[in-house]
Each structure stands twice: as C-alpha cells, then as structure tokens.
C-alpha cells in the first residue's frame, strides 16, 4: 500500500496483517467485537446494551451529547472502565479478569486523552520511550530512534529534550499521540483529543490523526470535529443516553440519519 509509508515505517506490521489490510474493508476481520455491553455507575446505567464490530484498519468516529456514554464506551475497550455485562473481544483476545489478557490487550490498544496526560516529570523523549523500554525491553538506542521517528512524524522532533509543561497544548497532544504509537498498537482510541485545545492547535492534531488514519490504523475517535469525521471516518456512531443509537457511514449519518435523535443532535451542532 503506497500511502502506508508514514507511520508504518516506524511500526512493523506482520506480513499476514499487512495482507489483511490490503483487502477492501468489508473483507477484513473484526478487530473489536463488542456484544451487548453494559456498564452502570451505581444505579445509573452509563452504557446500555451496545454491540459494535470494528474492522481492522477502520476509522470509527463516535459522537453524541455529553454524558451519553461515548467516553465510557471507548475507555472500556482498554479496560480503564470495567464492563459489567456482555463481552468485549479485542483482536481475538477476550477481555476477562485475567491479568495476562488485560496486559496483552493494553499493548494492543493505544489511547490519547482529552487532557493529554503526559508525565510532567520526564522529558518528551522519556515520555515516549518509557513504556517501550520498561514493558517491551527495547534497547535504549532503538527506543530513542523510534521516538525520534515518531516525533518527526508528528512534526516536533526539536522538542524532544523539553519537559511537557514547556510545550503548547497542540504539541503536547501530538507527543501524546507519539507516546501511544510507540507501543506499536493495533488500535488507537482518541477521547476528545481536541476539545481542550485552542482552534489553531486543533488543526495540527487533526492533521496528525489524518496521517495516522492513512496508514491503516484502526481508530476509534470520540470527537465533535465533524469535518474530520466526514473526511476520515469509515463509519460514525451516535450515542445517546448510554445506547448506540445509530451506526453508519458518514454520508448516511450526515445526509439521511435514520433516527430522529441523530438528526436533532446534528442540527444543533452543525
């Protein structure tokens, strides 16, 4: 695939997976399989009966009013929240209470947060190399080379030796993306990555995400950047009151929403 050179050069893809990625979307395997997932906080039902399958290399944008359970849903995909009913299978690994499964899944899944959550006490380079070195036991030179490569991809190699607090919000978020990619995940989760940013910084983060999508990375993004969604998403999912109300390609969602709630919400924000 010609357009996969970007991030892929830093991340090796096993041959059989590259082969899968070469197929059209419909023929690829499901990398995320959620069946009837429920989650309660006390008596409050935050996510109710959500079933969703995501193909390898697919980009899904999740949107919906605040408090609709979309963040909770993607946080369940790497077990930052525990689901209470239903099943979640990531790349063939069932999410159970088994620690080994969980560790494997966490390595499969990278995440970018709204508040960046960079480690303030170590440098940008240290932030990126920490996990590869400690978890994957990657030699330092290799880890640093990888980090520099990733920083170059997100466009800020010159900031490597700085501390996170010395960077702008957009730069921090790009570091966060690089940090997540350093573990060579199969799936990337984005939890409103741009909503804590100033408008001019949003673009640089979205650009990084666009480029990442172009490499064939499986992405689940909670975002309200509808332009980005229209351009990049393969499918869009609308959440309301904890339920998955509508799931479909962007064209359908924007032009012909099946549900009234979706339409109403889109009318409000567009």
């Amino acid at each position, binding site marked *: 695939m010609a357009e996969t050179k970007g991030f892929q050069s830093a991340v090796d893809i096993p041959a059989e997976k590259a082969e899968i990625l070469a197929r059209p979307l419909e023929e690829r395997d499901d990398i995320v399989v959620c069946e009837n997932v429920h989650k309660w906080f006390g008596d409050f039902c935050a996510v109710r009966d959500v079933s969703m399958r995501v193909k390898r290399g697919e980009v899904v944008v999740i949107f919906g009013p605040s408090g609709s359970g979309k963040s909770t849903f993607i946080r369940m995909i790497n077990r930052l929240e525990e689901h*209470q009913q239903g099943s979640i299978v990531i790349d063939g690994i069932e999410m159970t209470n088994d620690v080994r499964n969980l560790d494997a899944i966490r390595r499969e899944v990278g995440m970018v947060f709204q508040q960046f959550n960079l480690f303030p006490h170590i440098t940008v380079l240290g932030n990126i190399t920490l996990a590869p070195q400690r978890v994957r036991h990657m030699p330092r030179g290799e880890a640093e080379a990888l980090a520099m490569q990733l920083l170059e991809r997100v466009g800020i190699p010159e900031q490597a030796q700085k501390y996170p607090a010395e960077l702008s919000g957009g730069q921090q978020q790009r570091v966060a993306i690089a940090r997540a990619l350093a573990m060579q995940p199969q799936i990337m989760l984005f939890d409103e990555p741009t909503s804590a940013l100033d408008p001019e910084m949003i673009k640089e983060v979205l650009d990084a995400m666009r480029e990442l999508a172009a490499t064939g990375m499986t992405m689940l993004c909670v975002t309200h950047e509808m332009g980005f969604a229209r351009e990049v998403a393969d499918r869009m999912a609308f959440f309301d009151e904890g339920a998955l109300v509508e799931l479909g390609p962007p064209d359908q969602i924007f032009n012909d929403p099946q549900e009234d709630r979706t339409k109403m919400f889109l009318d409000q924000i567009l």
Partner: protein
Amino acid sequence: MTARVAAPLPPATTIGPVGWLRKNLFSSPSNSVVTVVMAILLAWIVVNLGAWVVVQADWTVIVSRVPLYIVGLYPYEAYWRLTICLLLISVLLGMTWRAWPDTARRFSYGFGAIMLFVGVFPHEMAPVHRALLLLNLPAIGLGYMLTPRAGESGPGLLEAIAGGALSSMLDRAAVRLATAWCSVVRALLPSLYGVAFRLATAWCRAVAALSRMLDRVAIPLATALRRPARALAPALDRAAIFSTPRRMLTAVVVALVVTMILILGIDGVPGLDPVAPQDVGGLLINLLLAFFGIVCSLPIGIGLALGRRSSLPVVKVACVIFIEVIRGVPLITLLFMSRHILPLTLPEDLNVDRVYLAGITITLFSSAYMAENVRGGMAAVHPGQAEAASALGLRGWQTTLLINLPQGLRNIIPAIVGQFISLFKDTSLVYFIGMLDLVEMGRVSVQGNQEFIDNGREVYLFIALVFWVFCFSMSFISRRIEGNLGVGRR
C-alpha cells in the same frame, strides 16, 4: 421522537449490599484475603479491648474525681460561674448552627447529648448544677433564635430543641435499617432456602413493623411541634438580633470577655471572688491555654510574618531568628527556659504566676508557627493582586495590609484550626512546669493515692479519649471549613 426504553436494572450482584460488598471488600482474591485478615484483627482488638474496658478495668479512679479532671482545683463555690460560661458557649453554638447549619448542627446535637447525659447521669451533683447543665439545651435554641435564618429555613426552632429533630432522626434511622436489610434479603433471595429464607423475611417484616411503630410516635410528635414553630417563625425572625456578621462578632467577643471574667473573677465584686490561676486546672486549663495561645499569637504571628517579608534587614533577620529558633527546639525546653529566664526579664517586684508564664511561652511558641502560616497564606495570594494595588496607587504597606494580608488570612483558616489542635495537644506538656492540667491531674491521681497506683492504664485511656474527642471534632470542623472555602486545593 422515539419512545425511550426504561433503563435496564444493573445486575443484582453489582448493587445493593451485595454489590457493595463485592466491590469494596471482595473484588479480587487478594482483596478478599486482606478483608478476612483485617476483619479478624479488628475483631481481636475489639474483643480484647472491650473485655478489658468492661470487665477488668477499675474506673473508680476516674468516676470519683471527675471534677478534678475537668476543672482542676477550681473552688466548688464558683462552679456556677463555669456552668454559666457553658451556657454562653451554648448560645454561641446555637448562633453558629443557624449561620452554618450543616456542621454546627452535628455539634449542637453532640453537645446537647453530652449535657443531657451529664445532667441526668446518676452521680453526685448538686441539683442546681444539674439544672444549669440542662439549661444548655434551651440555650442552644436561644442562640439559634437570636440569629437570622441563612436563606432556606432549616428545622424549626422548637422542633430542634424539643425533640423534633430527635424524632426525625429516629425515623430516618429506622427506615434506613429496614430498607438496608430488605435489600440484603432481596439480593440473597436466590441463594436462600427454607428456614433461612423464612427467617430473613420475618426479620425484614419485624424491622419494617418497628419502623412503622417508631413512625407512629415520631411523626405526630414532629408535626405537633412543627406547627407552633412555624407560627412563631415570623416573630422569631423579628427577635433575631445578631443579624449582621459584625453583631455576631461582637457577640462572640463579649461572650469571651464575660467568660474570662467569670472564670478568673474580679477582686471586690461579691460573688466573683478571684480564683487563683493555679487552681484553674484539668481540661479547662488545656483549653484556655490553647485558645488564648492561638488568639494572642495571631497578631504577633502576623507581625513576625510581615517582619520576615520586610525589606529592612535588621527586622527581617530578627524575625527569622526568632521564628527559626522557636520552631527548632522542643516545647519542653522552651517551657523550662521560661521558668528560669522569663522571670529574670521582668521587674523584681512583679511576681508573675507560672500560669501566665506558661501562657506567654505557649503564645510565643505558637506565634512562630503562626508566622509561618501567615507567610504561607500571603505567599499564596496571586502576585497580580499586589500589582493591581500598586497600579491603583496604594503604597507598599497599604498593599500589604489591605490586599495581601486579608486574602492571606482567609487562606490559612484551616491551618489555624490545625495549629489549634496541635497546640491543644502540646498544652499537655505544662506538667513539666508543675501545672495541674488534664494529664498531670491523671498522673497525680494515680501517684498520690496508694489505692489507685495500679490504675494508670484506665487514667491514660480516659485522658486519651477526652483529648481525642476534642481534637477529632476540631479536625472535622477544619475539613468542613476547607470544603466551604474551597481553599486547600488550588
């Protein structure tokens, strides 16, 4: 619009008591082990301690000399003055209750309960003192009445003082008990069979019946009291005299001055014969020393803090030395030095009582810590404030006094309460200079009396309990203030 489906109920194992147990106690195997070990440990401690307290311990040493522990050698004829001080405090408490309902209510309940207990407890006590103690309950109500409502009206006055609150409390407790138990039963239903099941439902029903019975008493009582209270409310609002913060502050200051006069007495006024400071002892002296230590150390501490921030090198160095020396040495060495050095610095014919020497030492000690608190509070004020003040044309000292200091002081209210707690604990060291505070009174009771020489443990446990009740209440208040002011988390 699509009809919204009712939210599905969470699985039974994740809610109610069972869910709670699972989540909080048995969420993983290791967690379950910890729970079991801790529960066993706890049970062991409780059983042993309980057995000792109830069976083995001999509490005569406490019961036979309660007044000594509380007020020391304060003359019996003047006890009524102390009980009047207590009444004043009750009024202040009532005022606080009205102005700051959430926290002060609990204290009013607690304080009232203690007064009720002591007032009714069958031990040797003159009826007049009993009456004065019981009078504290209406006194709280009086304070409550004399203060305007803060926004929404809380429980009515009469309701509060005459049992309405009690009945509603009972009511709430019973309902809570019943629902809690019933939900346990419901959660366990599938796994309960036969006798166990019948037993559980029977118990469930019994609790519900009990709750209904309590309701039958409590609700009419509450409603009966609520009506006159509501009728009286407008009149009471008119009677509220502490209607502004300034008036409330005045009331507090007046009450404190009167308290002091009552405690120490005035020469020549009949009925107010002066009490030798030496004779003020027990818990009373701990409280007085700590309270006046804090109050008097506030201005000195502010002065020292300003001195430390000052640009005058001599003043600055002097303040730094004072603060660091005092903070760098243990209080008992300071107390010792005060016994030997302070009298030397005073005029020869001025024979200052050691109570005052201790007071001075504790105040100086506390002011060094206070200075650091104040400095910290002022440092936390945003520099923009001072810049804005300068831009308005205020001079340096005006900026400090009018802008930085007030904001800084507001920041340190929790710190001041914290310091009060530690100072209160530290006053237990005045035994070192021979004052009969609570701890020393305990030692003396044990040592000076052969029949009690084996009862040290009882005495120290009692003293620990008294200190604990005070310190814990203070830290509770402090946390509440912190929450209310939103300081402490920046």
